[in-house]
């Protein structure tokens, strides 16, 4: 192989700078011992750079490299770092080492190329908009350095603009590839997800105090967009799970019922279509309005018999799904389900007795429900985030002693009372309401909107939603949680949903984030399929590859045509003026022959147009001087004279 040119101090410094910039956001991601290793290497590099640049791995540098490599092995072995972090750290260390040993142009180019991979690893952790912008800037900087290092002559021709042109020419390709390149349905290789921290959110167990913790967070749970008119906020009960089994303390899913798939529903009522972008979380279900009829995510889960949509695995990122909800056709309550919906554990004797009392007094189940709701609406019951501890019989203690509780207390005790009164009932967890973003026309549902309510079975109506919280705090349902609780309850949401321009600004920002998530981040196999189907094509991979190949070939063909299209000769100013003069002569019938030099033409023209002989001679003389004799200093003056002479030549 040929020897490459040696690098200078400036080039070495640039390589270091681009590496530091590429690694910088990892400060937020990597554990500090791994960061320290990379920091030591980078520090060594800059120390060498300061010491009259010498990138050769001489004694100290070698020692540092040895120590660092040993330290990394030791750290990876001893420390219990996530595999992902170790992989990223190793890549960074390799890139640093390449930089440290860069002596020739070849090394510099490889170091630049590795830099792109380091930039890519940023996205393993998160992909917000600002990081996209930052990585783009870093990539352009790296490309610019590469361009200048590879060809120092390129430094004279505005490398930034040149890179811009390259990106612009590549843009059709980028768009076509991004839209059409087939995505994987399932990852080929998965790093253990144990590293993912458990995100707070609605869980599949409801116990006293579990929701009031979730509600503290202003984090976004999901965003919902309606394709038709939007339903009123008070009817937005986002159903997650139905909880059947009560052990005296907590409500849980019924392991038996969740296994069974619901037969497809033919519904004739009015439907609501909406799209939900669900943030990443540790849940294995989706949120739907009552009753979820269809979800365009069928391959990832199933509808259970309780109209929940359950996922095979927790989503490995943000997911987006279109759903349809509508009224459910009438059904019968079988005996098994009735038994489950009436089952009560041992304990809570006073509540059981109260239920039995209502069952004796009211014949109609609706009246028993009214009795319970009236009790909650009565004075001593309060809606609060800090209900205090409950003991062994939480329902009794809540109903007859503390009488202060959050929605989980109301839902839980309501369902308990209904079962005791002989009305089949179950608990539902999910979210209620949301904040309508008028900028982007969608609802933002935050963790603070987490909610629990009840569903009771009424003969002739089926499963009917009853929200006991509405009885004690109707504003919760109408306007949202921040309206109900006092301002000093320390909810993060109260800052987020503060009134005025700040809120407007928040909507604009959230809308940008939502569009970003929608069009860029959650563009996956599913969306690709939809896109192709909208174009009237088959959504399978084969068609996708065909379309992609056709579009890419089209772009390449267009590029080739542009490249190979015969281009007009580029003329210098004097050539252009001389051509103008030749055209003037041609109009007089004196066409210049291909072999004819300027002097020969002048002789012929002078003979044909004797009155212009002097002018022709002057033009020819000036032209020849400009073409073959003029010096840089005289050129401008000569050119002006020549232009004047050609312009005034009108035979």
């Amino acid at each position, binding site marked *: 192989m040929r020897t490459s040119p040696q690098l200078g101090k400036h080039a070495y410094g640039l390589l270091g700078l681009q590496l530091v910039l590429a690694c910088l956001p990892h400060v937020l991601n990597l554990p500090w011992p791994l960061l320290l290793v990379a920091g030591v290497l980078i520090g060594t590099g800059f120390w060498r750079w300061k010491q009259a640049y010498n990138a050769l791995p001489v004694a100290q540098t070698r020692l540092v490299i040895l120590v660092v490599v040993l330290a990394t092995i030791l750290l990876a072995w001893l420390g219990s770092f996530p595999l992902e972090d170790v992989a990223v750290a190793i890549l960074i260390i390799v890139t640093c080492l390449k930089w440290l040993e860069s002596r020739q142009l070849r090394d510099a180019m490889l170091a630049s190329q590795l830099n792109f991979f380091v930039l890519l690893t940023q996205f393993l952790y998160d992909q917000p908009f600002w990081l996209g912008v930052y990585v783009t800037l870093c990539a352009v900087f790296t490309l610019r350095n590469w361009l200048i290092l590879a060809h120092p002559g390129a430094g004279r021709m505005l490398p930034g603009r040149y890179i811009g042109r390259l*990106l612009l020419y590549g843009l059709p*390709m*980028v768009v076509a590839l991004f839209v059409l390149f087939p995505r994987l349905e399932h990852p080929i290789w998965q790093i253990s997800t144990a590293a993912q921290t458990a995100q707070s959110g609605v869980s599949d167990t409801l116990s006293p105090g579990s929701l009031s913790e979730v509600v503290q967070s202003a984090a976004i749970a999901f965003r919902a967009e309606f394709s038709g008119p939007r339903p009123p906020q008070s009817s937005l009960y986002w159903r997650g799970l139905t909880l059947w089994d009560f052990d005296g303390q907590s409500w849980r899913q019924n392991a038996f019922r969740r296994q069974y798939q619901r037969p497809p529903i033919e519904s004739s009522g009015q439907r609501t279509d909406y799209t939900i972008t669900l943030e990443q979380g540790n849940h294995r279900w989706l949120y739907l309005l009552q009753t979820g009829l269809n979800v365009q995510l069928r391959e990832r889960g199933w509808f259970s018999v309780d109209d929940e949509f359950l996922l095979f695995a927790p989503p490995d990122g943000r997911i987006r799904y279109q759903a349809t909800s509508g009224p459910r056709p009438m059904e019968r309550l079988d005996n098994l389900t009735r038994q489950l919906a009436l089952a009560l554990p041992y304990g809570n004797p006073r509540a059981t007795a109260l239920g039995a009392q209502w069952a004796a007094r009211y014949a109609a189940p609706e009246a028993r429900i009214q009795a319970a709701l009236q009790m909650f609406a009565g004075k001593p019951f309060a809606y609060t985030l800090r209900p205090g501890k409950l003991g062994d019989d939480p329902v009794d203690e809540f109903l007859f002693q503390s009488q202060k509780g959050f929605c989980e207390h109301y839902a839980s005790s309501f369902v308990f009372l209904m079962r005791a009164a002989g009305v089949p009932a179950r608990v539902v967890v999910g979210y209620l309401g949301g904040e309508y973003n008028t900028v982007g026309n969608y609802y933002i549902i935050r963790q603070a909107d987490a909610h629990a309510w009840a569903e009771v079975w009424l003969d002739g109506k089926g499963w009917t939603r009853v929200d006991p919280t509405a009885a004690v705090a109707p504003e919760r349902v109408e306007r949202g949680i921040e309206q109900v609780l006092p301002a000093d309850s320390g909810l993060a949401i109260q800052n987020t949903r503060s009134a005025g321009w700040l809120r407007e600004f928040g909507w604009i920002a959230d809308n940008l984030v939502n569009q970003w998530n929608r069009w860029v981040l959650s563009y996956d196999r599913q969306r690709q399929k939809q896109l192709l189907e909208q174009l009237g094509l088959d959504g399978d991979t084969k068609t996708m590859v065909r379309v992609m190949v056709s579009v890419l070939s089209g772009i390449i063909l267009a590029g080739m045509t542009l490249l190979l299209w015969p281009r007009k000769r580029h003329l210098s100013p004097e050539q252009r003026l001389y051509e103008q003069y030749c055209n003037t002569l041609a109009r007089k019938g004196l066409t210049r022959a291909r072999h004819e030099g300027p002097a020969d033409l002048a002789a012929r023209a002078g003979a044909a147009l004797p009155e212009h002989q002097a002018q022709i001679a002057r033009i020819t003389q000036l032209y020849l001087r400009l073409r073959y004799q003029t010096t840089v200093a005289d050129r401008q003056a000569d050119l002006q004279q020549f232009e004047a002479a050609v312009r005034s030549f009108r035979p």
Partner: protein
Amino acid sequence: MNDVAARLPQQLTRWLQRKRLPVDGWVKLDRKHLYILPTWQGVVFGTLLLTMLLASLNFNLSLGLMLTFALIGVALASMWMAYRNLQDVRIAVAQPQAIFAGETGVFPYRLTHDDGQMRIGVQLRHARLVSQETDLPPHQETLISLCQPQLPRGVHTAGRLSISAEFPFRLLHVWSYADLMQEVIVYPAPEQHPPPLPTAATAGAESQQTQPDDETPDQIRNYRPGDPLRSIAWKHSAKQDDLLTRYGDIYQPASSLIRWQDTPANMETEARLSRLAAWLLMAEASGHAFALSLPHTETSTAQGPAHLAHCLALLARWQG
């Protein structure tokens, strides 16, 4: 069938190596004769992009895919730019300088192009000779030379020349060929301490020689280009419009005949040529007219740089 198969590579080779001869002195690197292949760096970069693509696909990183595709876009656009960087460049030979054996031979070429774009990092190559990478500014000719040190005596022809560039990023190698047949003449190196000009050649002439004198009757003819100044008969010429020159046996100007047979027969050919070259230089330096006589060849008697160059070139071309 076999016959065709056997002939095909030969024909392919012949087609691939077809001559790119100059038209009006110039070879234009048009689109039909530009070739492009990735360099090793390009292959490495391609592998890296593939790895980045797989990583992004596996973890479904939309932004990672975007970055990868942007780099693929830049790589493809740079293919376009690399092609344009060399397209329609024209190349012609420049006047080479003759050298003495052992000096560095320089094969100069002129390059130019017709549009306003700067062409960057153009390199010439012939066999093992590689030029510097040179940028071609618009609207002017740029000289690029191939240098070969330690050339032996003879006439050296640089045949097929390859013109290449790897701008931008050195991911792709774009090249073309030109058969320009640039020639550099290498004279024999003059002997360091040569003996004086052989007396046999000069003495005979000098013994008869008297200072020419316009009164002495001699033969006179019309001046011909190349006649030495001192042989012009000024007084006779003054009487006529044309110059007259003396000639013949009566007037012998101080001139030398440098003959192959005056060098020792037991010397090696190259050494004999070196001595002849040294004598030619001595004769030219002394200001005398001289002639060179080689077996089967003899030059006229004359002087001046052109005559010296002609004689030295004869030595350079001398074979056996």
